[in-house]
């Protein structure tokens, strides 16, 4: 039996943790997080299947980018609204992200990886995450960082999107293989996913503790 790919394995662990830790959560954001990881796992699994059959799977991942952008924008909106009314800046970000998505589809078609939108997402989500940190520092109330779920969720986003910036910019310019079966681009992708989901699982633990304290 063939083992699942490292990214699929990470997402299975993340989804299991989300189901265990967040099922009883009544907050819609955390329910959507759980749903998003399930969708991401589905997309990753089917993408992997298409790849194993040597079928172009870029259109499939382009569809996922569309959902991913929406979910991360919603998550950032949820985190930022504790400090400000972020509606305007999130709407502006949505227009920029989906504008670049549409532009890339028009220029390159849907069968080519939407690298323009991915690059825009990297920059924009990094800026939003840094802005969240700025608001958190500026706020006169202090928070207990090690048990603050939103902080660790945003930190996961920052690591993933900031960390992938260079790999996205130079996408297609290096086909270097670390091992025979492992291209550097894929290794970076695995490491980033590992960091993202580790931080998100930690945020789920914080959220569960927070929910138990509140009940």
């Amino acid at each position, binding site marked *: 039996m063939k083992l699942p790919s490292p990214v699929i394995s990470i997402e299975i662990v993340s989804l299991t943790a989300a189901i265990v830790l967040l099922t009883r959560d009544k907050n819609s954001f955390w329910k959507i997080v759980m749903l998003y990881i399930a969708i991401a796992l589905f997309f990753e699994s089917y993408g992997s299947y298409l790849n194993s059959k040597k079928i172009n799977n870029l259109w499939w991942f382009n569809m996922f980018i569309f959902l991913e952008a929406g979910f991360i924008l919603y998550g950032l909106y949820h985190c930022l609204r504790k400090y400000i009314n972020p509606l305007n800046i999130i709407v502006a970000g949505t227009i920029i992200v989906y504008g670049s998505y549409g532009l890339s589809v028009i220029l390159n078609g849907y069968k080519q990886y939407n690298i323009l939108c991915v690059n825009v997402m990297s920059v924009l989500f990094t800026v939003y995450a840094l802005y969240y940190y700025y608001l958190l520092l500026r706020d006169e109330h*202090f928070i207990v960082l090690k048990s603050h779920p939103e902080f660790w969720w945003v*930190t996961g986003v920052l690591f993933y999107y*900031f960390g992938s910036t*260079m790999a996205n910019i*130079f996408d297609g310019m290096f086909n270097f293989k670390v091992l025979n079966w492992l291209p550097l681009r894929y290794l970076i992708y695995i490491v980033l996913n590992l960091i993202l989901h580790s931080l998100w699982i930690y945020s789920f633990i914080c959220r569960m503790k927070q929910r138990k304290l509140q009940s």
Partner: protein
Amino acid sequence: MDILLYMQNETAKIAILVAIATLIFLLMPVFLILYIRSYNRHKKNHFVEKQLMQETFSAEMLKAKVEVQDQTMQSIATDLHDNVGQLLSLTTLTLNSVNLNDTEKAAKKIENSLSLVNKSIKELRELAKLLHGEQLVSEGIGYAIEQEVNWLSKSGVFQLKVQNELTRLEHFSPDKDLIILRLMQEIINNIIKHAQATHIEINAYLENDKLFLNIAEDGVGFDYDNAKKNNTGMGLSSIRKRMEMINGKLMLNSTVGQGTSISLEIPYP
């Protein structure tokens, strides 16, 4: 062949560059989180310190309030014993000595008794006013000062010049208000009892988060340095002590034969 090798070299260089840059890009958020953690810790310490200071301040205010109440009670007890008690005893004595057969003398004695009872009522009203303080300040220090001035003007003994800007205050400090009112009452009582003044000037205003209360009169004045040295300041030491409790400043100028002026400067609210 050379071109292929060159391209492979270039690809490897870009790959190394991307790998190093990604590593750096991953390290930067780590340092950012460490900075946020440290900043947050400072913020927490500051918050705890602020809370501690507030608690200390509240405890000091409570202490000051209790002391002020104690002093008020003492004044009431002294006044009851020395004034009202004496007046009523005298009334009893006078009424006891009334001989109904000697109508002329009896009428005079009853008249004297009535006068003594009226004096007692006046004294009791003064005492009631002292107890009334907390209710007065509930509507703000400006209102309490206004009432104090009204009472003073009704006595008709002094010519008053008053400028009270504290009636328009937007923020109050109920704890400080009571202490400020008691200080003012103490100063005015001192003027009434000892100064032999004819004019009193009162200025009350707020400037740069500080409340200023200036009271000046044209009475007999006194040697302030001497009074300070001998600790015979007609309640001045208690005024000074209360001012210290609310972090206020007291400035007193007095010249024998020319009167006294007292300025209070209190952080407010």
